[in-house]
């Protein structure tokens, strides 16, 4: 690349900056920026790095809590206290745009990036989870995306040796051409070993560590701040290439380095690479930094400073080391065969100064790139489509006459079918902590050396959010919390990825704001503060924006690993009950979409006080050993939930005999009772002698408690007042459910 001679407005616009923003840059510098400086401003002021559109809205999230040790936005990931002098560091991040252009590497480097955010805080990563969205699998492009993304996650996670313990995958036409790849990483650290991403102590040395710098990923942050277009594949050079082996070395070396006590602060070179890591650590530490760019190791000839500063080559980090301890740091990195080169030092004047040997390259006040970056209050308008889609006249829906057929269609829908094809490609057991494997409501990881375990779940229903962003936002939090409750964990905090269309579109921005408000209300009520996450705007393809898709990553804590619950039925003769009493609805349901081709109606109502009470009941029942299985009712309704409890455990299928007569007050339509969706409800099983004690706990909390039937040997029979609606062999259902996804991909 050659430096352009003159900075003109076209060049400014090509960098995604507006005319006003350019004027602002000139005022800050008191002169015209040079090319390198223009590049630095463009990435630091990009949506991706600056959160310029979302910042004011994100303030609505509750971020405080007695367990919160590092709040959202303070560092690269949130930190919560789990007792025993241990803390959990966790965060979720999107890699949507790179994955849309190059699914394998896009997803792989998404995994790499979030892992670095965790271990640079001193934590050993113990699990990855991911939340994925694709268009319909009937489209070959969506199949290509799915194979690529799953392959990329597997490649990276398996090699580095951090278990990918599940997540969720959802298919809907709105994600056609714009898949979503959200990756959550969780790590554990001793409370007194948490490392901050801060540059402190004038004169301390700044080390560049890890891979050399190339032209890959040039300007990735600004690339992620644009819509996906027909030409986006030309942006392939903006997607980085992952090297999990290098990252494994970085991970081990970093943790060893922290133990040695020489580290002041460190940060991953993620989006906007060397630029953001130096600027952000300086900004948090309220200081300045000076680096000599000629010292940066390069993998290509003739790179100009602009390219070095904006490269997003992977597996690189910035480490600030105590003055006088440089040799100890070098020794550890050399053991792991890693580059570790001092490239600069911490200064006191609040200026970000880049030199190329003796030649000054750039000089910018640090804060102008971070705290003082532009923030916009975007216009928002209630979308016109909402009035039309929210009305659903249930009476006009034809009634299916063969519910066996409907059930099979539902179970083989990729949204409900087993996701085994996906998570079997992930090493989900390495680390020997995975106590509840993928495929349950939540994954459970023990914390070695304690009686504790962590429960993890990802959730977010874009269809609900499309129909009612506020309720959809609330439901995303509640469903994720309910999932961890089902395994016996208390929900303690969330991270999130907020995936939306273009924020300058007032209707999109309305969706965004309402979703955040809904999530904030649920987080407040359920006592799960937001500890971090990210925002991904510009998720549009040539046919329009994706459904608004906030994804919640929920962290739950289990105090005693002897009291973990699983979703599958255990024994013949056990009774099956529905605990909770949300109102069953067809609005926004998978049944409505799959069988009737409609994305309409209102999502099921969510009453937060009922939801909270359900958690109390469920956790108390698990704590007292009264229930043997607990499974959330979500996509596909009660029938689906019951079937899953029969077949999730492939070692031992069970049957069930269900009578829907106790649900009749919900409505007379059989399809509603079977496949309608509902909030704040779980399907549980217990031995007959415990049913009274269980009911008593539910009644005390004023929570609905309805007997559905009993666990049997091999057959699933669902009837209503003696009329048989469904009769199926569960081993058969298992086969259909398990193979559906891989058959679609053949």
């Amino acid at each position, binding site marked *: 690349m050659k430096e352009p001679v003159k900075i003109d407005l076209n060049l400014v616009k090509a960098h995604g900056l507006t005319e006003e923003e350019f004027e602002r840059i000139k005022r800050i510098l008191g002169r015209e920026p040079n090319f390198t400086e223009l590049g630095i401003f463009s990435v630091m002021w990009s949506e991706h790095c600056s959160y310029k559109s979302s910042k004011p809205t994100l303030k609505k999230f509750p971020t405080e809590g007695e367990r919160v040790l590092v709040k959202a936005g303070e560092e690269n990931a949130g930190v919560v206290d789990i007792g025993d002098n241990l803390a959990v560091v966790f965060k979720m991040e999107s890699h949507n745009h790179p994955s849309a252009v190059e699914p394998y590497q896009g997803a792989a480097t998404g995994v790499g990036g979030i892992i670095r955010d965790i271990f640079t805080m001193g934590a050993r990563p113990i699990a990855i989870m991911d939340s994925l969205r694709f268009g319909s699998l009937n489209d070959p492009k969506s199949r290509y995306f799915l194979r690529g993304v799953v392959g990329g996650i*597997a490649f990276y996670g*398996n*090699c*580095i*040796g951090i278990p990918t313990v599940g997540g969720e995958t959802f298919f809907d036409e709105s994600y056609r051409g714009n898949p979503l790849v959200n990756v959550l990483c969780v790590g554990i650290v001793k409370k007194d070993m948490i490392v901050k991403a801060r540059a402190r102590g004038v004169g301390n040395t700044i080390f560049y560590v890890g891979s050399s710098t190339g032209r890959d990923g040039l300007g990735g942050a600004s690339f992620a701040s644009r819509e996906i277009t027909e030409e986006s594949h030309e942006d392939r050079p903006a997607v980085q290439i992952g*090297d*999990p*082996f*290098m990252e*494994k*070395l970085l991970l*081990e070396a970093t943790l060893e380095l922290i133990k040695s006590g020489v580290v002041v602060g460190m940060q991953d070179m993620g989006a906007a690479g060397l630029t953001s890591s130096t600027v952000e650590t300086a900004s948090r530490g309220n200081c300045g930094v000076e680096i000599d760019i000629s010292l940066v190791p390069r993998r290509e000839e003739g790179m100009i400073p602009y390219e070095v500063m904006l490269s997003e080559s992977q597996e690189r980090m910035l480490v600030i080391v105590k003055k006088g301890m440089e040799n100890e740091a070098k020794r550890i990195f050399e053991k*792991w*065969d890693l580059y570790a080169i001092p490239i600069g030092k911490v200064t006191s004047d609040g200026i970000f100064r880049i030199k190329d040997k003796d030649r000054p390259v750039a000089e910018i006040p640090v804060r102008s790139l971070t705290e003082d970056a532009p923030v916009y209050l975007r216009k928002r308008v209630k979308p016109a489509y909402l009035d039309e889609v929210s009305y659903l006249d249930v009476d006009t829906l034809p009634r299916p006459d063969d519910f066996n057929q409907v059930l099979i269609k539902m179970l083989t829908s990729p949204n409900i079918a087993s996701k085994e094809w996906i*998570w*079997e*490609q*992930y*090493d*989900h*057991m*390495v*680390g*020997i902590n*995975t*106590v509840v*494997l993928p495929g349950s409501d939540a994954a459970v990881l*023990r914390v*070695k050396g304690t009686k504790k375990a962590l429960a993890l779940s990802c959730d977010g229903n874009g269809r609900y959010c499309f129909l009612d962003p506020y309720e959809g936002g609330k439901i995303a939090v509640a469903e994720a919390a309910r999932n961890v409750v089902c395994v016996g964990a208390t929900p303690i905090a969330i991270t999130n990825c907020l995936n939306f269309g273009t924020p300058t579109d007032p209707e999109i921005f309305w969706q965004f704001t309402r979703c955040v408000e809904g999530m904030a209300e649920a987080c407040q009520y359920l006592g799960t503060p937001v500890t971090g996450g990210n925002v991904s705007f510009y998720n549009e393809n040539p046919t329009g924006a994706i459904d608004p898709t906030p994804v919640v990553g929920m962290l739950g804590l289990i105090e005693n*690993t002897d009291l973990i619950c699983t979703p599958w039925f255990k024994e013949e003769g056990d009774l099956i009950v529905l605990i909770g009493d949300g109102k069953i609805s067809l609005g926004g349901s998978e049944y409505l979409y799959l069988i009737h081709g409609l994305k309409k109606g209102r999502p099921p109502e969510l009453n937060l006080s009922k939801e909270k009470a359900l958690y109390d009941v469920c956790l108390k029942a698990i704590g007292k050993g009264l229930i043997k299985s607990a499974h959330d009712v979500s996509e596909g309704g009660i029938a689906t939930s019951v079937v899953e409890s029969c077949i999730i455990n492939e*070692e031992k299928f069970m049957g069930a005999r269900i009578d829907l007569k106790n649900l009749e007050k919900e409505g007379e339509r059989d399809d509603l009772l079977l496949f309608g969706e509902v909030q704040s409800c779980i399907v549980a099983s217990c031995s007959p002698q415990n049913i009274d004690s269980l009911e008593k706990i539910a009644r005390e909390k004023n929570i609905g408690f309805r007997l559905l039937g009993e666990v049997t040997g091999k057959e699933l029979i669902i009837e209503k007042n003696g009329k048989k609606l469904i009769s199926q062999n569960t081993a058969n259902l298992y086969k259909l459910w398990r193979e559906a996804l891989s058959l679609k991909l053949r």
Partner: protein
Amino acid sequence: MKFGVIVFPGSNCDYDCYYVIKRVIGESVDFIWHKSSNLKGYDCIVLPGGFSYGDYLRTGAIARFSPIMKEVIEFSKNGGLVIGICNGFQVLLEAGLLPGAMRKNRDLLFICRYVYVRVENSDTPFTRLFHKGQVLHIPVAHFEGNYYIDPQSLSRLKMNNQVVFRYCSKDGEVADEFNPNGSVYAIAGICNERGNVLGMMPHPERCSESILGSEDGKLIWQSIVKSINERLAKE
């Protein structure tokens, strides 16, 4: 008695093996860095799973050239016990300590799941606490676990009783549908002629505690301990 777990820079089951040996089995164990060249004082060497040196070329292809592998070969020649698990098995093949080679899985996908394997030979120092035909519930996690050996060498393996584990059903039946990766003769683990080097694709360290869903792997560690104790008693 002392175990040593070899740590290649890309090993990732090293901690797991270490944890199980120390905390579950209760024996003494050290990590041994791949650049080291001293195996004095160890009774059993574990080559753990992972991606030794990234394995971008071929699994285990670089690891065999590391300084420590020379020592491991020497160690095995002197009768020391060596167990290679997953990537460790691949390294043993590349190093020529065991015959055969690994190909990519039949379905060309990484596969991580619980499988069943049948003990074919309970006469090795690693399997003496099992009985022949016993079925283990044990996880696999690999992309290249499709074991290949030419027919002649296979007959030799069989003749010498070197096939230690074969993939099977819950009831011990060997058939193609229970073979997760397409391995020849459904082979999941083999030993050398002398019986002191074992390579296996399934992960015993992942099923040595009841909290993880299966304890079937524990008997492998305990077999090793018993064998070493007997030998030490003789010495």
